[in-house]
C-alpha cells in the first residue's frame, strides 16, 4: 500500500503544480475554484463506478472484450450518458452558487460550456483507461478489484483537472 500511495501522492502533487500555475485565473474567478473539487470528485466517481461494474461483470464471467458484448458496451454507454447528465447540472448549480456567494463574473453559458465539455472529454478518457486497465489486469491475471479502481480513479481525476484547465484556457 505505501509505495502505491507515495506514487499516487506524487502524481497528485504534479497535478497541484499545474493547478497552481493557473492560480491567478483561479483567484480571479472563484467559480472556477468551486469547480476544482467538483471536477476531481465527479471524474473519480465516474471512473470508480465504471471500474467497479466492469470488475464485477468480469468476476461473474459476463465480460468479454468484444464489440458485441452487452456488458462492455452497456457500461461504456451508461458512463457517457451519466457524464452528459451530471456535468451540465454541475455547471448550472455552480453558476447559481457562485452568483449567490461571489461576484457573478462568469456567465451561465461560460460555466455550462466549461463543465459540459470537460465532462464529455473526461467520460471518454475514463472509458478508455478503465477498459485498458481492466483488460491489462485480465491479461496479467491480477484481480481487477485491487488494480483497476485506484488506477482509474486517480488517473481520471488528474486528467479531469488537465482537461478542465485546458478548456478554461481555451474559452476564457
Amino acid at each position: 500500500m505505501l509505495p502505491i500511495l507515495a506514487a499516487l501522492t506524487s502524481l497528485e502533487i504534479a497535478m497541484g503544480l499545474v493547478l497552481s500555475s493557473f492560480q491567478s485565473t483561479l483567484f480571479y474567478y472563484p467559480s472556477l475554484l468551486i469547480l476544482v473539487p467538483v471536477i476531481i470528485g465527479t471524474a473519480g466517481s465516474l471512473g470508480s463506478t465504471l471500474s467497479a461494474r466492469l470488475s464485477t461483470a468480469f468476476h461473474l464471467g459476463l465480460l468479454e472484450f468484444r464489440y458485441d458484448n452487452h456488458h462492455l458496451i452497456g457500461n461504456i454507454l451508461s458512463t457517457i450518458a451519466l457524464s452528459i447528465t451530471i456535468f451540465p447540472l454541475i455547471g448550472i448549480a455552480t453558476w447559481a452558487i457562485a452568483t449567490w456567494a461571489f461576484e457573478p463574473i462568469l456567465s451561465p453559458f461560460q460555466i455550462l460550456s466549461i463543465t459540459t465539455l470537460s465532462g464529455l472529454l473526461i467520460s471518454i478518457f475514463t472509458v478508455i483507461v478503465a477498459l485498458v486497465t481492466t483488460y491489462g489486469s485480465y491479461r496479467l491475471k491480477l484481480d481487477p478489484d485491487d488494480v483497476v479502481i485506484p488506477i482509474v480513479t486517480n488517473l481520471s481525476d488528474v486528467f479531469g483537472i488537465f482537461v478542465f484547465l485546458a478548456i478554461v484556457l481555451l474559452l476564457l
Partner: protein
Amino acid sequence: MINMNLRKLTLQAYLEALPALVLSSLGGIIAGLILGSMTNELQSIPGLLVLIPALLAIRGNVYGSLGARISTGLHQGFIEPRISFSDQRVNAAVIASFLNALFAAAIGATFAYFLLTLSAEPVVPLQILLSIALIAGILSGTVLITAVISVIFTAYRNGLNPDTIVGPLVATIGDIFGLSFLLIAVRIIMGGG
C-alpha cells in the same frame, strides 16, 4: 431483441449510478464553495494550492479502501457490526489507514515544498506546510474513520450493502471535511489569520 437487452443493461447501469453521482457532485460543490472562500489563505500561504489535489485524493484512496476492507470483513463474517474497541481486525485496519493517510500527507507536503523550491517558486517554510497537512490529516482522519465505520455498520445491520455506500460516502463527506479541516489547520498554524 439484442438491442433491447443492451438498452436494458445501459439503463440499469445508468439508473444505479445516478443517485450516488448526484450526491457526490453536491458534496463536491459544497467543498468547492469552501475552497472558493479560501482565496485569502491560498494567496498568503504559497504552496497550499499545490497540496490540495493530493490531500483530497489521499482521503479517497485510504479511507475508501478502509471502508471496502471492513465491508468485505462483514460480508465474510470476520467482523461483527458493533462498535467495540476490542476487535483486533478493525483496530489494525483503522490504525493502518490513519498512519497511511498521515504518511501520504507528509510525503505530499515535502514533495510540494522541494519541487516549488527547485523551480524557484514562492513557498512557505517546510515546517508550516507539513504542520498544516498533518493537522488537517489528523482532524479529517478522525472524523472520516468514525463516519465510515458507523455508516457501514448501520447500513449492514439494516440489510443494505455497504459496498454501494462507502465510495459515494467517502467522496461526498471526504472533500467537505477535508477542506474545512484544512481551513482550521491553516487558522491554527497561522494564528487566527
